[in-house]
C-alpha cells in the first residue's frame, strides 16, 4: 500500500481526526472568527446594530491603562502560581506513588479541592483569611492583625495561594499518570546499575516524564492567564481594584461597562500573549521529549 498518496492521507485523517476536528471547528474556530469580526465593531453587547469601526477598539485597548496594569498583574500572578502549582503537584504525585500506606486515601484527599468550585471556595477562603487568620495572628502578636485580603500585596498573595491549593491536586493527577507510565523495571535497572534513588529520579524518571511536565506547565499557564471565578469569588478585584486580573477586566469591559467590541479586542490581546507564552513552552518542552 502506498502511504504517501494524497488519498491515503486524506482517508487516514478523515477516519481518525475527522469527528474531533469537525466538532472543534464548529464550536471553537467558527465562533472565534465571528468574535474576531466583533472586535472591529462598536457593539454594546445587546443592540441589533453593530457599527463597523475598524481598528478603533485596538487603539482604545492600547490606551486603556487599567487593562495593561491588569495584564501585568496577571503575568506576575501566573509566574508565581505556575511555579508553585507544579512544584507542589509534582511533590504530591511523588509522595502518593511512592508506596506509602493509604496512598489512595491521600490521593482522594488532594483531589477534593477540585470538587469545591466557584462561590463556595471563595466564601470559605474569605472566611479563613478575614477571620481565622486575623484571630490567630492577633493572638500570636498580641496586637490587632489585619486581613491579608484588605492589603494590596496580601490580596494577590491570597489569590496565588488559593490557586495553588486548587490546582495542585488537579495537576497531581497528570503527574501521577506520568509516574505510573515510567515502568518500574527501568527504575530497578538503574538502581542495579548503582544509581541512588535520587539519581534514578533525576536521570530516568524525570526525563521520561517530560510530556507530563509539558502538559502540566502548559495547562497551568493557560488556567492562570484566564482565571476569572476565583478572582471574582475571593477578591472581586478588591482592595481598590488592585487585584483585578485580565479576564475580570475584560469581562467588566464587555458586559458591565457595555463596550463589547473593546472587551473582545482586549480579550484577543490577552489570548495572543497567553498563546505565545504557552506555545513557546510546549515547543521547547516537546523538542527534548524522549521517545519510547
Amino acid at each position, binding site marked *: 500500500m502506498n502511504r504517501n498518496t494524497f488519498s491515503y492521507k486524506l482517508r487516514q485523517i478523515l477516519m481518525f481526526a475527522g469527528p474531533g476536528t469537525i466538532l472543534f471547528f464548529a464550536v471553537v474556530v467558527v465562533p472565534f472568527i465571528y468574535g474576531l469580526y466583533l472586535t472591529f465593531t462598536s457593539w454594546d453587547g*445587546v443592540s441589533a446594530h453593530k457599527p463597523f469601526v475598524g481598528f478603533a477598539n485596538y487603539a482604545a485597548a492600547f490606551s486603556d491603562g487599567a487593562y495593561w496594569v491588569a495584564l501585568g498583574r496577571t503575568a506576575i500572578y501566573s509566574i508565581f502560581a505556575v511555579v508553585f502549582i507544579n512544584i507542589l503537584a509534582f511533590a504530591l504525585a511523588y509522595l502518593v506513588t511512592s508506596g506509602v500506606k493509604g496512598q489512595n486515601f491521600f490521593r482522594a484527599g488532594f483531589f477534593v479541592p477540585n470538587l469545591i468550585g466557584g462561590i463556595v471556595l471563595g466564601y470559605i477562603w474569605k472566611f479563613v483569611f478575614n477571620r481565622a487568620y486575623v484571630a490567630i495572628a492577633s493572638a500570636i502578636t498580641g496586637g490587632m492583625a*489585619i486581613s491579608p485580603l484588605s492589603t494590596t500585596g496580601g490580596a494577590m498573595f491570597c489569590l496565588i495561594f488559593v490557586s495553588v491549593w486548587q490546582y495542585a491536586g488537579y495537576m497531581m493527577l497528570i503527574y501521577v499518570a506520568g509516574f505510573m507510565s515510567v515502568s518500574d523495571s527501568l527504575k530497578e535497572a538503574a538502581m542495579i546499575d548503582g544509581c541512588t534513588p535520587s539519581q534514578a529520579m533525576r536521570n530516568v524518571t524525570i526525563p521520561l516524564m517530560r510530556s507530563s511536565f509539558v502538559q502540566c506547565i502548559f495547562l497551568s499557564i493557560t488556567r492562570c492567564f484566564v482565571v476569572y471565578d476565583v478572582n471574582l469569588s475571593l477578591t472581586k478585584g*478588591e482592595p481598590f481594584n488592585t487585584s483585578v486580573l485580565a479576564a475580570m477586566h475584560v469581562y467588566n469591559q*464587555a458586559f*458591565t*461597562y457595555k463596550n463589547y467590541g473593546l472587551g473582545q479586542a482586549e480579550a484577543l490581546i490577552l489570548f495572543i500573549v497567553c498563546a505565545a507564552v504557552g506555545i513557546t513552552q510546549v515547543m521547547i518542552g516537546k523538542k527534548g521529549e524522549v521517545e519510547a
Partner: protein
Amino acid sequence: MKKSTVKKLLVAMLSFAMIFAMAACGGGSSEGEEASSEGAAGALKIFNSKMEIQDVFESDLASAYEAEAGVPVEVYYSSDTVAAHLSTKYASKDPYAVNMVDEKDLYSLAKEYGADMSDMDWVKDTNYAVSVDGKVVGYPVCVEARGIIYNATAIENTLGEKFDPASIKTLDDFKALLDKLVAAGMETPTSVMKEDWSLGAHYLAQFIEEREDVDGYVASLKAGEAKVIEDPKFNALMDTFDVLKDYSMWKGQEGSAERELSEQALAEGKIAFMFGGNWDFAMMKDFDYTGGAGMMPVPQNLEDDYTGKLVGGGSKYFYVDASEGTSAETQQAAKDFLAWFASSDTAHKFVSETCGMVSPFGSNTVTCTDDLGASVKGFADADMLIPNYPGFPDDHYSVIGAEMQKYLAGQCTREELATAIENYWKAQA
C-alpha cells in the same frame, strides 16, 4: 489478558453506541415536549434579577397568575450579570418576554427593544415609570431608598430612653448621640461597608444627587470646572462619613468589613447605625433580629432642601421585549401580566407582604411587612425621596468605589479623593 481487554473495549463501544442512540432519542423526545409546551400553552417567560424573590415569584405568583388569568408563567433567574445574560439571550434570538433590569440597563436594552407602554393604565398610578425617547418603557418593580439604617431597640436598650429618628437632623446631633451610646457601653455604634457599590454608587453618589441642577453639575465636572474639594455638599457628606468610620465596628479593620456581619450586628442590636438601604432587611431578618429597625436620612451639618429626605426611587424595572423574537401576541400577554401585577389584590399582597417590598403603585394599600420597607414607604408617601441620578457611567461605581475604599482604609486624603473624582469625570468628557 489482551483478549479480555479487547472484549471489554468492544463492550464499552457497543454500550457507548447504545447510549448515544438513546440520547439521540432522548433529545428527540425533549424536542417534542418542548414543541408541545410552546405550541399549546405558550408560557410567558419572565426574567427575574432579584434573587431574594425568585422562590416565591416562581411558586406563589406564577401559579396565582395562571389560576386567575389562565396563562402559564415561567420565571427565570441567572447568577451571571444581567447585562451578560441578556446579551446572550438576544444573541441567540431567544429573548424573555418580560425582563427585570436595573434602571441604567433600560437606556441601552429598553431603548432598543422595549415596547411602548405609554398608554397603559398603571402609568398613571405611579411616579416612578421610566421613559426613554418619549416612550414609557420602564415599569417599576419596587421602591428602594438608601440612608442610615438604625436599630431603635438597641438604642433604647442601651440608653434607657425613647429614640426618635426625627430628632437627629445634623451631624452634631448624630455625634452627640453616638457619644452617649459609647458612654453607655456600646463601644462601636456604627458600621460602614467596604463594597464598592455601597461606597461609590450609594454613598458618594449622594453628593451629586442632592442638588438642584444635577445635569448642570455633572456637565461642569466633565468640563473640569467644578472644584469638588470646595463643594459644601461633598464636605458635609464626607464629614458624616468620617464620623461613621470613626465609630465603626470595623475601625482599623476596614478592609474586612463584610456586609453580612455588619447586617448581623445591626439586626442583633450590637451596633445602632449603618449606612445601607431597605434591601438590607432581607438579610437582617434571618438573624436574631431585635425589631425596631428603620431608615433615616444621612445627617449632615448642612441645612438645605434635601435635609430630612432619603435618596431613592424605583428600583428594578420590567420592560416588555418588542424585538422580532417576541410575537405581538406574546407582547400583549406580557403587558396583560404587568397590568395585573400593578392592580390586582393578589399581586399587591405578593409585593408588600410576601416579598416585603415597597410598592411603587398608589393603588397598593397593603401594609409593607418589612420594617425598613415600611420606613421607606413613609418617606415615599410624604414625597421625601430624592431621585436617583441615572446618568452615572457604567464604570462609575467601580472606579469611584475603589477611590472610596482607599479613603475608607486611610490610604488617601479627602483632597486626593476629590481630585480623583474630578479626574474621573474629566476623562468622561
